[in-house]
């Protein structure tokens, strides 16, 4: 969706403010927001793509005026409600009003280090050969789905070159909506700055995105 999350090329946010490397959190609630997001995600009730879609579905004014852990918190609330695990009434009350429903897994403390160190790979066996090869010229689609997608607006309807073939990966556009993993080939596609931003672009600039096969046509 063309939500507030799609920030590439947007202007008006002012300078980037560096931060010392040893800062991990800015308040204790940020730690809890991080941990709750990971632990709730570990139930398996939704995919990482559904999580991203919940965040990008925030009203743009809310998204842009919230810190990132606030965005995570608000996204988590939405996910819990939309998956029937917590009710709006409970969020309003600030406490549980009825017993929990069964979930796929509850991440226990003893299992947590191993779970974090294992991660969740997103590559999948391919069920067809890759359509494009390194060096192929491609054109990204002019796609504006109302649902989740990972093709940013600035890189739509543009010519680029396939630089790497990454393998087949879970397709976010379906996974985010519970429509299956539908794995597709993933490519790193590189664009010139001129192609993306026109004749006044930095002439030394190239930008790549990682693009699923459905996002691309031969050019």
């Amino acid at each position: 969706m063309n939500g507030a999350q799609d920030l590439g090329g947007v202007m008006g946010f002012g300078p980037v403010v560096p931060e010392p490397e040893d800062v991990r959190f800015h308040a204790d609630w940020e730690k809890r927001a991080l941990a709750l997001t990971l632990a709730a995600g570990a139930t398996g009730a939704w995919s990482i793509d559904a999580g991203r879609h919940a965040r990008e579905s925030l009203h743009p004014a809310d998204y842009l005026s919230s810190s990132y852990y606030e965005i995570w918190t608000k996204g988590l609330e939405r996910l819990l409600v939309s998956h029937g695990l917590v009710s709006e009434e409970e969020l309003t009350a600030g406490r549980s009003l009825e017993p929990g429903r069964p979930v796929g897994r509850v991440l226990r403390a003893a299992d947590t280090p191993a779970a974090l160190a294992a991660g969740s790979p997103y590559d999948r066996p391919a069920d067809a050969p890759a359509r494009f090869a390194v060096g192929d010229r491609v054109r990204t689609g002019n796609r504006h789905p109302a649902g989740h997608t990972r093709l940013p607006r600035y890189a739509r309807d543009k010519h680029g070159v396939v630089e790497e073939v990454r393998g087949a990966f879970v397709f976010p556009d379906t996974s985010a909506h519970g429509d299956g993993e539908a794995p597709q080939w993933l490519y790193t596609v590189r664009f010139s700055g001129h192609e993306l931003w026109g004749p006044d672009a930095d002439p030394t600039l190239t930008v790549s995105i990682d693009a699923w096969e459905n996002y691309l046509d031969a050019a």
Partner: protein
Amino acid sequence: MHGDRPESDLAIEHRVAALESILVEKGYVDPAALDVIIETYSSVVGPRNGAAVVARSWVDPDYRVWLRRDATAAIAALGFTGRQGEHMVAVENTPEEHNLVVCTLCSCYPWPVLGLPPVWYKSPAYRSRAVIDPRGVLADFGVTLDPSTRIRVWDSTAEVRYLVVPMRPDDTEDLTEAELADLVTRDSMIGAGLAGQPARVTR
């Protein structure tokens, strides 16, 4: 004139605390697991991991080749694996080309090697400008590249995570691998800084 957050810190603090109560009461999360997660990303997983990877690649040509060819495995060999680092790619800076990593759509970041992303990496200011005005962004970090250096921006739109290998500073032949790792700042592994350069003072 900046957009202040519509809710005070107090309000979000209560909101998160309430959410934790609900999830624990319902049995969806183990409160002890929350503490382990926090401890992991406070003390265990952070940018010194990535610095060790970079330093190794500077001193060990075989490792460097492996890192180029299969970064996920080469990084795992040093003990760094897991969430948000399942599919790693290392990209090397050269005098001709400088790499910069961003996630314009959210905040994708290679946790096992760099830890949690800094606020600026997640900020609209960085996410919006990195792809259209990377030299302006670098200027905000006090970094000026030669005008002829090509800039290569990687927008992390999928589950591939990019680690920038900064250039080894000059006159470091006598340093140990551990001393070299100390020159590798977090920002230099995103491409927003250079190794052993002024940006490092922010560590």
